[in-house]
């Protein structure tokens, strides 16, 4: 019995995986995008989507385009409960884009193909396919899947264009003209005629050579097209047994894992993608400067990868990204992100009034230390262009002149911008008043505008430098000093807000609200900040928060465009907050996360929320 178990399990695996299109993605794909149909349907069923306004519109268009052969989205024949994929494969000079879509049957697809195009359908076994034009995509399908395969040979296309549009203009021969001046008119005529004939002869030879070259390239293009079709069949028929799929790529498997996200994007080795897509030959042909000769792309982006996952759950939609650098770059970048956060900032934040913030927690000392090394690594030594020597010289001068520790005393690298209020302010404007004879005089009118109040804080330990700058500002009448607060008076004309500056607790403050600055200066400001926001701001390299609900509720309805005014109440009830956090570097990776709070009335989950919001704006 046992001897039958292994073959049986093997057959079962193949049967189960027959629908898993991921096995068709080659292990060396550079970019892979996956939409997990089952996860999406769990959130919003096909029926619910079809009943939404966008779904109804789509169904209506589909019915119209197919002469009512397709009545609903299900009849399209896609297997929406399976995973949909896109992948990009790059080889030197050749880029292949491929979409893999699971099907339940081919009937729906056939109904979407116009009758005149059905004549182009070819068959190979149970596979149907259409090759669209000479460079268009190959569309291939059977009852289980639809594949759209586009392969472009950038190198060949480039070679073809350079030959086709090379008109071989001869340089004007100045020497010959000068010589011709000495000749008699008849001799000149004779010489001109002879040169004309020579030129025509050369032109004919060139044209012939060009035709031959173009024919040779066309032959190569035709062979490439045949090869691409062969590769398309190979991809279409690939199974986990016959091909080494992306699931055998350890980088992919490690990055993607077994998450419950709805959409994932993975891109590997940017440097390879760059080299394959933008080959050196492209620049060589145009005679331009090739950035590859100057910048060491491999050092910058070699082995760098990015993974993004979009996850919709009940109350939030989350986009998580992980950017991984190579060891060398990670060593350079890590100290830049190793900033210390000034806890005194929290003494001047009140969450109840907070509409949003953006914080940055970098190390200026780390940046200044890493900058020369980064420049040295980015620009290739011994490059053809002298730019690398110039950069190297610049870097040496920079290192000599800049005192990294001293600079970090002035600006440490931790800073935060807070949006603290939206206030109604009266602003004046010039209008005209006409008399009976339509003579007019300028009059000043006032109107109310909603303007933001903001506060910017950054750590600076050099009180003496701050004082010196402020004193110069006061002497030059750009600033006025009152009760420990400087007001900037020499600011751009019509700047809609006032600007106040002060320093306290090793913090430089720049704000638009005099009352707030005064309270902070007097020590009467009442701070309030939740532990989670404190942690977000303190622990991350960068953090941001936007309280959408509060912002919308504070903007007067008449400030909205007319077409949005009746939506204000809906927006206030439904728009939540947005939080962004980008962690400090851990190992070689930088992780960031954007979370959209999608709690609102009557939305069963975050995907349904997005659909409902779209629906409400389609009214």
């Amino acid at each position: 019995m046992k001897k039958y178990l292994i073959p049986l399990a093997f057959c079962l695996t193949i049967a189960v995986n027959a629908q898993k299109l991921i096995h068709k993605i080659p292990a060396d794909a550079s970019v892979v995008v996956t939409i997990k149909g089952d996860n999406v349907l769990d959130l919003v069923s096909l029926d619910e989507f079809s009943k939404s306004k966008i779904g109804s519109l789509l169904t209506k268009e589909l019915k119209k385009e197919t002469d009512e052969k397709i009545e609903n989205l299900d009849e399209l024949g896609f297997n929406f409960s399976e995973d949909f994929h896109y992948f990009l494969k790059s080889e030197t000079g050749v880029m292949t884009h491929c979409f893999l879509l699971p099907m339940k049957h081919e009937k729906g697809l056939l109904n979407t193909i116009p009758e005149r195009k059905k004549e182009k359908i070819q068959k190979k076994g149970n596979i149907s396919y259409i090759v669209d034009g000479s460079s268009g995509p190959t569309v291939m399908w059977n009852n289980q899947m639809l594949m759209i395969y586009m392969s472009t040979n950038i190198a060949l296309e480039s070679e073809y264009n350079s030959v086709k549009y090379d008109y071989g203009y001869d340089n004007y021969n100045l020497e010959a003209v000068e010589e011709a001046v000495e000749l008699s008119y008849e001799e000149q005529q004779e010489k001109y005629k002879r040169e004309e004939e020579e030129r025509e002869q050369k032109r004919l030879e060139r044209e012939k050579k060009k035709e031959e070259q173009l024919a040779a390239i066309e032959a190569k293009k035709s062979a490439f097209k045949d090869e691409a079709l062969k590769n398309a069949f190979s991809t279409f028929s690939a199974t986990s047994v016959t091909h080494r799929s992306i699931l055998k790529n350890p980088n992919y498997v490690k990055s993607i894992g077994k998450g419950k996200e709805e959409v994932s994007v993975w891109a590997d080795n940017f440097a390879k993608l760059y080299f394959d897509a933008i080959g050196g030959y492209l620049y060589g042909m145009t005679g331009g400067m090739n950035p590859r000769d100057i910048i060491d792309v491999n050092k910058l982006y070699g082995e760098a990868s990015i993974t993004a996952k979009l996850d919709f759950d009940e109350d939030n939609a989350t986009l998580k990204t992980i950017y991984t650098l190579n060891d060398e770059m990670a060593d350079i970048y890590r100290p830049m992100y190793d900033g210390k956060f000034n806890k005194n900032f929290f003494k001047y934040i009140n969450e109840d009034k907070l509409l949003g913030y953006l914080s940055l927690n970098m190390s200026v000392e780390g940046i200044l230390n890493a900058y020369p090394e980064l420049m040295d690594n980015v620009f290739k030594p011994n490059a053809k262009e002298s730019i690398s020597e110039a950069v190297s010289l610049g870097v040496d001068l920079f290192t000599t002149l800049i005192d990294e520790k001293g600079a970090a005393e002035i600006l440490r690298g931790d800073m935060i911008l807070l949006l603290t209020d939206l206030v109604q302010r009266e602003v004046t404007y010039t209008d005209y008043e006409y008399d009976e004879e339509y003579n007019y005089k300028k009059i000043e009118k006032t109107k109310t505008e909603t303007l933001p109040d903001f506060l910017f804080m950054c750590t600076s330990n050099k009180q003496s430098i701050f004082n010196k700058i402020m004193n110069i500002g006061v002497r030059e009448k750009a600033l006025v000093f009152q009760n420990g607060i400087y007001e900037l008076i020499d600011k751009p004309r019509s700047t809609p807000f006032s600007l106040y500056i002060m320093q306290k607790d090793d913090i430089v403050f720049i704000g638009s609200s005099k009352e707030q600055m005064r309270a902070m200066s007097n020590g009467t400001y009442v701070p309030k900040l939740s532990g989670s926001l404190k942690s977000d701001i303190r622990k991350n390299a960068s953090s941001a928060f936007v309280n959408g609900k509060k912002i919308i509720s504070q903007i007067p309805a008449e400030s909205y465009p007319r077409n949005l005014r009746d939506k204000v109440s809906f927006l206030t009830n439904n728009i939540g907050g947005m939080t962004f956090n980008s962690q400090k570097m851990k190992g070689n990776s930088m992780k960031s996360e954007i979370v959209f709070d999608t709690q609102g009335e009557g939305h069963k989950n975050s995907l349904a929320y997005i659909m409902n919001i779209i629906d409400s704006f389609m009214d």
Partner: protein
Amino acid sequence: MLRKSFNYLVLFFCISLCTSCFEILEEVTLKPDGSGAVMITFNMSKSKSKIASLMLLDSVNGYKIPSEDDIDETLKDVQLHLEKTPGISNIKKTKDYKNYIFSISCDFKNVDNINAIFKEIIVKQNKKEGTNFSTTNFSYDKTSSMFKRHFKYDQVVKKTFYNLKSEDKKVFNDASYTCIYRFADKVKNVSNKNAKVSPNQTAVMLRTQVLDLILGEKSLENNIELIK
């Protein structure tokens, strides 16, 4: 990076919350011999908070935001162009960057001189965009004492407007175009039903929304007959 983010965050709110509208004022004072003075004023004072915020940026929505220097250069170019135009004299320009009001005025020997100012620009525009705008905007027939403000609508304007992003369309929401014409003689009749004649009958005012002009719903076309 933070400075940029700071600018963008604050400006985002200023730009989103502050209103945007402008007024164009076209004034012509005509003497009986056909000479006179013309003044064009561009008043963006009502949007000054928004413009001041925009001018802190290099570009918005893909459009370059002109700096004060750019505007000065443009006004200088206009002045140079006017100086080269035959029959034009006494050129004056005013610029008020506090309120964003700009005007340019000049005297003309005859009404055709005003047409010559814009002719080159209109011909270029017609060639470039395939439009069919008339190069004659004003005419005056001394014998019949008829002053005409010509206005030829082209559907391309509407098409271009509809192709704009909704954010860009908003710029025209509350924009107005005012024409004021003053005469030494009394006005007998005006052809544009939206135009008003002053009680002493020596001035005509026509105020329209720019959006109405763009959509072709209203026109600046006006035949003003004067009493001989």
